[in-house]
């Protein structure tokens, strides 16, 4: 008679070791490119980052030195405007799909979000060029923000929807049963319960668009000079990196590497900051 209390056979133990090993290897393979990219960026870029790089604007061609202060501030502005547009719209659409929508219209909204997610970023750039830049008659930081905001919406909307659907219905009932109005239940109970996932989705969307170059080419356009005016062309790190990297000048190549490193550090810093701030007061962490 077979007994389960018998020690595992050699074959089963070997299979176990084999699969644990394979999944460990897979995890390593995922981490390796990330570590390699970051390591190489640090290696090539760290030497060129100094106070001048962070505080000066670009020098004319041929003159050594200068920095990317305008591009760093420009990127922050464009990303800020993009988030102001994309985050509320994305979360709103997700809440609609998960909590209020019924039937065909939801399917349509969801399908639209998925299609929007699949549209190449350069097409979004052209669309915003036609919608914002042409009527305004000039490139602007604002149009760049609009382009990035549009690109953030589908990711945020879909993750918000998925995360809200994971909140058990008993939580909604508990809130409604206390006489809490529907809108407050959704905002302060359901959405709050799902907040961790929603924030992750938002950060993913943010990090993804932070490195976008193509949609900015037709919108923010780039700017060699200091500017913080929302309705004027503005510099952005991805554009600056791109134009410096394809230039024939050694000094600009060096700065492109430094710019790329700064961009990554900015993204990591922003994501970490949001995590720290939002995890405060969330009891799910010390359950």
């Amino acid at each position, binding site marked *: 008679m077979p007994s389960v209390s018998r020690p595992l056979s050699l074959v089963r133990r070997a299979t176990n070791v084999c699969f644990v090993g394979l999944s460990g290897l897979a995890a390593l393979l995922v981490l390796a490119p990330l570590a390699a990219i970051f390591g190489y960026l640090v290696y090539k870029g760290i030497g060129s980052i100094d106070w001048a790089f962070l505080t000066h604007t670009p020098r004319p061609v041929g003159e050594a030195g200068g920095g990317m202060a305008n591009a760093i501030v420009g990127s922050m502005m464009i990303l800020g405007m993009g988030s102001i547009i994309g985050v509320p719209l994305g979360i709103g659409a997700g809440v609609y799909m998960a909590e209020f929508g019924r039937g065909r219209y939801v399917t349509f909204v969801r399908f639209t979000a998925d299609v929007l997610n699949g549209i190449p970023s350069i097409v979004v750039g052209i669309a915003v060029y036609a919608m914002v830049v042409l009527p305004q008659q000039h490139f602007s930081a604002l149009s760049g923000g609009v382009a990035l905001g549009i690109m953030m919406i589908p990711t945020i909307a879909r993750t918000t929807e998925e995360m809200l659907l994971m909140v058990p219905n008993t939580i909604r009932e508990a809130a409604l*049963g206390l006489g809490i109005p529907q809108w407050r239940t959704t905002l302060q109970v359901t959405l709050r319960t799902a907040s961790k996932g929603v924030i992750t989705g938002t950060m993913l969307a943010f990090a993804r668009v932070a490195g976008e170059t193509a949609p900015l080419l037709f919108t923010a356009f780039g700017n060699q000079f200091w500017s913080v005016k929302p309705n004027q062309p503005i510099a952005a790190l991805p554009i600056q990196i791109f134009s410096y990297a394809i230039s024939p000048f050694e000094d600009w190549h060096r700065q492109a590497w430094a710019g790329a490193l700064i961009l990554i550090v900015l993204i990591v810093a922003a994501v970490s900051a949001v995590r720290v701030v939002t995890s405060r007061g969330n009891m799910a962490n*010390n359950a």
Partner: protein
Amino acid sequence: MGVGIAVKDLNAWFGKAHVLKEVSVKVGANAVTAVIGPSGCGKSTFIRCLNRMHETVPEARMSGTVMVGDMDVYKPNIIAADVRRRIGMVFQKPNPFPTMSIYDNVSAGLRLNGYNKRRELDVAVEDSLRMAALWDEVKDVLKKKSGASLSGGQQQRLCIARALAVQPELLLMDEPCSALDPISTGKIEELIFQLKAQYTVVIVTHNMQQAARVADHTGFFLMGKLIEYDKTEKIFTTPSDKRTEDYITGRFG
């Protein structure tokens, strides 16, 4: 103080399924009423019609009148949220808000209804937790621990405290002990017994001994109909309907 309930010609549907049929009953104030019956007989739907939770399910409908105290629950100008604020509900599975501390859980009904006076919230939280016999176990970790970190029995008492904090006139309990061990069940039954001094309690239960232990009156539902409603003693000793007798003696259900 608790209020009485008067239900007249109550019908309820989920889509095409007619789950409650012509239920009429009067429930006295400051008493515990048990609702018993086999699974799917409509007893949960019955109490969910009392505080308008029934309508939160898509495709759910109802007809008839429900009076809770002097409030006509289904009068067109009455808002569901206002009804639910006056009628507390405790659910089958403990459902504390997982992202909130114990304190925030108990005060949620007050805070999210726009009530924000710190000192009065403190008092309400302590009173409710004391009434739910949970205060001594959690008083030191009120703001440090999540509601979800408590044991199942504690979570259910937390949910009772949360419902009591808004000072309802009527407390509905939908099988509040079905997910709990005997010791926690005992604590909650004791609690129900004490609650009737201040509240009217309606409790759905699968456990007939529980109904016999805690309830003054008992109603027996079968296939959407209220078969019999009487003093608990009478229901369990000399029921007037054959079907009630069959059920309580374990011949079906």
